[in-house]
């Protein structure tokens, strides 16, 4: 009890002035305040909006419906179609990007004269605006004048021109091919950095012990780049799930609902019908679903920061 009234000698010896203790908070204040204002406040607003029946052009008809929008959502067949498409979208795009990126990285890790040039050129898809990518591929896929059909017909792979983006069974896969093209350089670069971190001596030791190239790959290369694959993979799952600009420009979600993913559905719904209540409900639901993957990524990254 006396300790509280009489400060211990160490407290007197090293007083921490408030100005020093507050320093980090002062330094952080601008960034935190701005993000509170432009990210967290709108996010709360989004959750609130999702509980209302709000059509933007008739704001007076807005009314509180509780979880009514969510009930409507689960009964909405388009929601389930979009959810399925999102699963296909992520499930195919990310492994394809990773596979192609891995092959590219392994090749770029070898010695050849124009390695630097090849590395720079391969990155180009990454630097292009997504709207340019989407329009570019629409031009390539064009059923009448597109170059892809020309090539395939010339090589007799197909008999007649294929309407890549107009065929409900093909459109989603055509866009997945585009996104694979856009995203593989990211993986290539990440994995290449991982490969260069593996000590050469490991390979030398293995080849002295008579390990085949395949066994070296399985026992040295793969474990060496496993952390990179996991981190880059998680990041890409989140990124691919969120990205909808390419789909929006290529098909706008069509034909029918064939290329609707959840974020696109939310966006289209809010944009075309100005049905912000329902659109926001879709967005919030999608965010919650994505949250599981985000949580895994955050846990991994924060463990790093601790060290």
């Amino acid at each position, binding site marked *: 009890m006396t300790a509280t009234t009489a400060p211990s000698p160490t407290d007197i010896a090293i007083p921490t002035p408030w100005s020093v203790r507050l320093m980090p908070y002062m330094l*952080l204040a601008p*960034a935190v305040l701005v993000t509170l204002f432009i*990210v967290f406040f709108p*996010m709360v607003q*989004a959750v609130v909006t999702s509980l209302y029946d709000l059509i933007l052009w008739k704001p007076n008809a807005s009314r509180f419906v509780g979880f009514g929008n969510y009930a409507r959502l689960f009964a909405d067949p388009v929601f389930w179609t979009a959810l399925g498409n999102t699963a296909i979208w992520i499930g195919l795009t990310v492994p394809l990007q990773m596979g192609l990126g891995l092959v590219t990285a392994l090749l770029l890790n070898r010695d050849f004269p124009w390695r630097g040039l090849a590395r*720079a*050129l391969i990155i180009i898809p990454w630097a*292009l605006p997504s709207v340019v990518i989407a329009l570019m591929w629409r031009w390539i896929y064009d059923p009448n004048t597109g170059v892809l059909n020309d090539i395939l017909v010339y090589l007799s792979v197909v008999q007649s021109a294929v309407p890549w983006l107009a065929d409900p069974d093909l459109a989603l896969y055509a866009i997945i091919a585009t996104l694979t093209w856009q995203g593989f350089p990211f993986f290539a670069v990440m994995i290449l950095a991982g490969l260069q971190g593996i000590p050469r001596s490991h390979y030398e030791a293995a080849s002295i012990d008579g390990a085949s190239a395949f066994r070296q790959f399985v026992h040295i290369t793969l474990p060496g780049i496993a952390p990179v694959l996991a981190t880059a993979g998680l990041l890409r799952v989140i990124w691919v799930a969120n990205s909808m600009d390419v789909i929006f420009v290529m098909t706008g979600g069509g034909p029918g609902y064939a290329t609707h993913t959840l974020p696109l559905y939310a966006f289209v719904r809010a944009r075309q019908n100005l049905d912000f209540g329902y659109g926001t409900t879709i967005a919030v639901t999608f965010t919650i679903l994505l949250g599981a993957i985000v949580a895994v990524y955050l846990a991994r990254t924060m463990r790093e920061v601790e060290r």
Partner: protein
Amino acid sequence: MSKPSTLRRILTTDLPVLVIVLFAMGPFAWMVLTSLTPTDTLNATGVSVSPAGWSLDNYVRLLRQTSFLGNMLDSLVIACGTVVLGLAVAVTAAYAFSRFRFAGRRLLMLQFLLINMFPIVLLILPLFVLMRKAGILDTHFGLILANATVAIPFAVWMLTSYVGAIPKSLDEAAMIDGCSRLAALRRVVLPLTMPGIISTGIYIFITAWNEYLYALTLGGKNVRPVTVAIQTLIGEYQIEWGLLAAGAVVGAMPATILFLLVQRRLIGGLTQGAVKG
């Protein structure tokens, strides 16, 4: 190296790499060829592959008949504004994260990481409503704020790792010599972090320049960045692929050139976090 092994290298390395490079370059190269083919030729015989059929006709039309230069200016203002806002608030935040251990540090770092993961669609709708109320819809300022939702968290994380790489003993030495904290930040840490700040700034510029959905939703009439303008080139009755391609090539050029210039350093920074994992 003896001859057979060179041949072997060409077959197992050079050729596959060439295939991948062609795959990566092909679509954009096709776009460039399209932009160089005049519309009449394009409609009659398709894209002209030989230089004989090339002309700058589409580019001339792009600059004369459309407001593309004005759109470029809009993009430039927004991208530069985002860089300034993002870096200004992120530099001090990064310094705080890497030099101080304080209550709530973990939580605050986590929140910046979390923001980066938010679906853009979740923010775009409430931002539209809020900006309409605030009267900053369709202004440069509004789009700068919107782009900052991506730029700030990214810049904070990048810069935290850059500042963290500078030994603490340097700013401690400066402070013993009589500098205050802020003076140490300005005179010692800032100059040393400059390469990191520049590459972070350039990456923010590229993402803000390439951004499409915010620009489409929160801008569009008065303020029309290139990404939105390119799409309006499509034309009313039939798609003008030549003009569109010219717009796409010009619109993509600034970001692509910057990316190629800084790729080495940028990728170093981007991969650091992932490789350590």
